[in-house]
């Protein structure tokens, strides 16, 4: 519990937490920044999910890519990372990059210029995104950290992954609050989904079973103004 409390106190004060010894800042917009590495990680952008749904007859607003990219542009401008890692499912489907209007492609290319950019292959987008720069890899090791799309089922120190779209729920004064979250036990981290149309899965779901040291686990729930670190004992399923 002491590990969790230390992490909660740092995060509550707006300071960095550590993952496998590496200092990390959980940005309330849903990205994690490693200041000592100058590296920014973002996961599950699911770009062009709107047009993917429209193809199946659900004509949801075609503004999700715009919204997602605008937010991404803002966090990149704030942190000025040397390296950006997109942890997979960057596009909602294989044809997504091809369907994306040129204006967004240009916007993305603008963000990419002057820095290293890695596309980690995801289950939705196993191939390199068509017509975009950046390097497509299955995994990426930087310092003590290992970046991949799907988290391993067993505890792996230093693993930074996405894929599961974590969220957490608490009940306080008889009322329920459910938010996207960063999930970490100080050894590894699963990032929340960043895309404008992405849903989420509770960290208490069986899909996460065995991944974390529960006594050190903290859900960094995303609020309007800041990130709220919540210990495992307060979390509720559903």
């Amino acid at each position, binding site marked *: *519990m002491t590990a969790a*409390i230390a992490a*909660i*106190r740092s995060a*509550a004060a707006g300071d960095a937490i550590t993952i496998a010894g590496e200092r990390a800042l959980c940005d309330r917009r849903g990205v994690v920044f490693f200041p000592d590495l100058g590296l920014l990680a973002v996961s599950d952008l699911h770009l062009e999910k709107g*047009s993917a749904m*429209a*193809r199946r*007859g*659900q*004509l*949801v*607003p*075609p*503004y*999700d890519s*715009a*919204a997602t990219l605008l937010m991404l542009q803002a966090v990149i401008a704030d942190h000025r990372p040397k390296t950006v890692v997109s942890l997979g499912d960057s596009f909602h489907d294989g044809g997504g990059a091809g369907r994306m*209007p040129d204006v967004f492609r240009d916007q993305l290319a603008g963000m990419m210029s002057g820095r290293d950019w890695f596309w980690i292959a995801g289950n939705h987008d196993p191939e390199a995104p068509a017509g975009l720069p950046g390097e497509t890899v299955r995994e990426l090791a930087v310092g003590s950290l290992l970046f991949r799309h799907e988290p391993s089922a067993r505890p792996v120190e230093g693993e930074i992954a996405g894929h599961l779209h974590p969220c957490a*729920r*608490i*009940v*306080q*004064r*008889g*009322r*329920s*609050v459910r*938010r996207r979250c960063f999930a970490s036990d100080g050894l590894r981290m699963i990032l929340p989904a960043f895309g*404008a*149309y*992405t*849903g*989420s899965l509770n960290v208490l779901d069986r899909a996460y079973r065995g991944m974390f040291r529960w006594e050190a686990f903290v859900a960094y*729930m995303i*609020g*309007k*103004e800041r990130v*709220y*670190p*919540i*210990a495992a004992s*307060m979390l*509720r*399923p*559903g």
Partner: protein
Amino acid sequence: MNDQSRISNRKAKQAPSGMEAAALLPKPFLDWFRERGWAPRAHQIELLATVQGGNSALLIAPTGAGKTLAGFLPTLTDLAVRGKRKPGEAFRGIHTLYISPLKALAVDIERNLGKPVEEIGLPVTIETRTGDTPQHKRTRQKQAPPDVLLTTPEQLALLIASQDAPRFFKDLRFVVLDELHSLVISKRGHLLSLGLARLRALVPGLRMIGLSATVAEPDELRRWLVGQNPPGRMAELMTVAGGAKPDISILDSAERVPWAGHQARYAIPEIYQAIKAHRTTLLFVNTRSQAELLFSALWQVNEDSLPIALHHGSLDATQRRKVEKAMAGNALRAVVATSTLDLGIDWGDVDLVIHVGAPKGASRLAQRIGRSNHRMDEPSKAILIPSNRFEVLECRAALDANYLGAQDTPPLVDGALDVLSQHVLGTACAASFSADELFEEVRGAAPYARLDRPTFDRVVDFVATGGYALRSYERYARIRLTKEGRWRVSNPHVAQQYRLNVGTIIEQPMLNIRYVRAGRGTAARGGPTLGKIEEYFLESMVVGDTFLFAGKTLRFEGIRENEAYVSNAASFDPKVPIYAGGKFPLTTYLADQVRGMLADPAKWKLLPDQVADWLRIQADKSMLPGRRDLLVETFPRGQRYYMVCYPFEGRLAHQTLGMLLTRRLERAGARPLGYVATDYSLAVWAFGDFSHLLKTRKLSLAKLFDEDMLGDDLEAWLAESWLLKRTFRNCAIIGGLIEKRYPGQEKTGRQVTVSADLIYDVLRTHEPDHILLQATRADAATTLLDVRRLSEMLSRIKGRIVHKALDRISPLAVPIMLEIGKESVAGEANESLLGEAVDSLIEEAMGTA
């Protein structure tokens, strides 16, 4: 079963001349009446003559007036003449369509109409078609339609969206609309009106027969029944005066009537005595939670083990059918029920109706009292049980209203655009359409009579490609314009999706409640289901919490997929009170009556002594406002300052007012901390001393309550509000933007909620004027916020605000002050709750908690 009274004419008071009846009714009918010693009633013959003359008609009559037979006489006489279909004769479509708001009512009518049809020996086939009708029977009904089809608005929408609709409806002569007053309200009524407009286009000369309880504005219903393009036409009106005056009393309890709360526990012994003194008692309450509590309380005093049952919409259907059957067989002494039993269905030999809690709308009261007796010439007997002091006033007002016959239904509002979108897609599913023709057709439906062409075109555009300014979905269009200028569905998948998503009733996401053995959690194997409860209620529970449901105290064991597991609780006292269920606002009329009663000490004689005393003390310590005035009291209490006002406009309107006042007080530097609203009053509390601020003119009540709050403040708040998100979800589903469910796969409420919320955020940022957001705002203003009520109130009290600065709480303020802490505006304070959770953890760790 009392079906005679529904269909019969035992005591025909105003029998028409035998000549007239003989001229209109075929001989077998005349024989049938004569054999039973009856005669057709005047309104039955009048309606028959009207309809035979080619007109549509609205029959307004109290329960027990032979309304159903009246509604079907045109059909039965017509079919008696037409005769049986010969073998080899061409296909015959349905002859009469009967539409009711409830599945149960359709089933009831099938049973009750079957009897005279059989006795007269008519060659008429009658069948129901509802959501429960098996697929093979539906298919058969399409191939060999019955003469009379009894169905619901949703089924009509499905029928007209199918390609064989013209064939199915080609012989249609009449549409009978039962309980019309409850069919026309809400989006369901909008969808039905569009369906009827379609039928009018398919079958020129179609006649509508509306059957309704007494309503305040019959002309609205008369217009609703007939095409409104050009506007102004009305169906013929027939009104049957009310029968015997009901014998209604308010329980004059020897016990103390509580200040606040909704449980009426004080009256349980007296209620039990009343049940014992009657054959069968129906007990009505306003919410499901009240039903559970009352049922549980009655069984705690049920020393004689009287058969007392529970009936509400969340219970498992088999359980409900069981209770209904026992009721019809007179095997029960009492049934505790909510509005599920509300409409005109016969339920055995009830001789007493008890209404617990305030009856809210006077017409709702009349409807419920009517239940106890379907013979219109004998008085019905009813007792009202107010559960707190304000409800005593409301019951008294409702009683007066009932005697005066002044009844009200919600005013009809303009047709919703999400419903229109659904209808446009449905129309395309049946056959291609021309926008010009459909526009003219739609304007024939009364709720859409004022629709303008640009809005209609935007709706069509929305249906086709989503209607976005960024026109990137042309290639995914659901409907496309052909070379001939007609809109048609782009592929069969669209029609399939439409059929799965039809209807306007979006239920709260619900979870099944399933029994398991205690302590085994969600790993246990499930037992029988008890019913369904809203997901949001279950989400706030922790394993081990106990609550009341289905008349039992249950222990929450956890949630697994779409089921909540529960076991029998060891304790008798539930820890979590109960989920809220439905709530009705006070109608405008009743609110006015209550204010009138407060203002007039002469009327206090009619009230129980303890309530009259309460008002006298209020007059002494503070004051009672005039009928048109708004009383605002300010006083200190504890470390805070309170402002309490008494608009009597219902909780929704008060909540909206509270939210807007808080914003203004914030700007005025009064540092407001919170507010709470009841049906009767609103309390706001703050760090700032209201009395002082008002005295020093730093705050002005006239400005604070100025109507302009409904402008920018409302807009700004609405945009941020969670209420709007929920409304958007409903509009998005009804409008077909997101699906209720996929073929073969039921989506859980959670997945829909999440994606609808995200879509809302994105759409609001990028296209705030999108037609679906427009529909959402209109919807929220009418149904969620009661802006109309609030706006009428603000204009009424202009220059009529009376302020009383007090040293301490007034008697009238006590009930709402007791609500503080119990009530919260759910969903508004999420951020602070998260912060609290973090702080409590840190405090705990530091040993300071």
